[in-house]
């Protein structure tokens, strides 16, 4: 009964919760990207981008996203300013 009330107030069924959690866990397991590697990847992306534009370092996010038939690497970066000319390294 208590459960039914909780469901009524928008708590998802535990089976569905499990499925969603497993989707994320398996995706990470399969790609085999540890948090360390993700962090390194993030720093590398940041380094490349900052050669062309000024970036808000604190806002960068790198995530894996699962589509129906693909896994995507999605990165969200806030740009402060784009340089007129690409800086030559």
């Amino acid at each position: 009964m208590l459960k039914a009330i909780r469901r009524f107030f928008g708590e998802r069924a535990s089976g569905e919760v499990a499925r969603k959690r497993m989707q994320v866990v398996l995706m990470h397991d399969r790609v085999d990207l540890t948090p360390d590697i993700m962090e390194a990847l993030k720093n590398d992306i940041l380094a490349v981008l900052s050669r062309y534009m000024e970036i808000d370092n604190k806002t960068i996010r790198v995530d894996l996203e699962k589509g129906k038939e693909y896994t995507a690497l999605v990165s969200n970066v806030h740009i402060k300013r784009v340089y007129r000319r690409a800086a030559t390294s």
Partner: protein
Amino acid sequence: MAGKTIVVTSGKGGVGKTTTVANIGTTLAKKKYSVVLIDADIGLRNLDVVMGLENRIVYNLVDIIEGKCRMQQAMIRDRKLANLYIIPAAQTREKNAVQPEQMKTLCAELMEEFDFVLIDCPAGIEQGFKNAVAGAQTALVVTTPEVSAIRDADRVIGLLEAAMLHDIHLIINRLNQKMVKKGDMMSTQDIVGLLAVPLLGVVPESEDVVVSTNRGIPLVHDRGSRAGVAFQRIAARLNGENVPLDDNGAEGFFGRMKRFIWS
């Protein structure tokens, strides 16, 4: 080679590998195929007690591999079926007493004589797993509808594919249809969707399994058991028979009547 070697694996322990091996093996033997079951769980043998043959063990798998006995001497014949044998694991040895190459050779030899060689894989993904998988052409991955079992199953599927074993089938054990209906358990479709491996069958959660292992008589001998029927259908599908995949724990009126009469 005449026969086929099939490994039953799961990653996680306690999901029903041994029960699956015992019941599929017994069903295939009842269909008049010659079958040998190998317990590859060295140090933690269990297939013998599930089959009710624990009193007859003299030699074991490691004895064969080390040449201490002939292959026939370590094979124990089933109590009921003359064309069903088991090769027990060694109980007082370590997993690295066997090498993958030796298992390959053994499986090849057994396939000359038997239609089906079923291997009960140990839990885990170390040496014991590599040994159990080495000689197989087909893998059955057993999971239960729980997050830990599913995650481990996914790991194992990855490792099987890395070992170039691509004929992989999924068995979902201990599905509780009532809980699925309430939304408190992942459904068959959920699990197949997550693991992306073809489904061989679903076994409903049942107290019969405990009773059958208590007695040491595989479930499929008991015609009144729903879980037993599920294992029979799985074995038939494995054998290439056309049995529809509708046994996800639901059962019609006639099924219930039949079960009532047999029990």
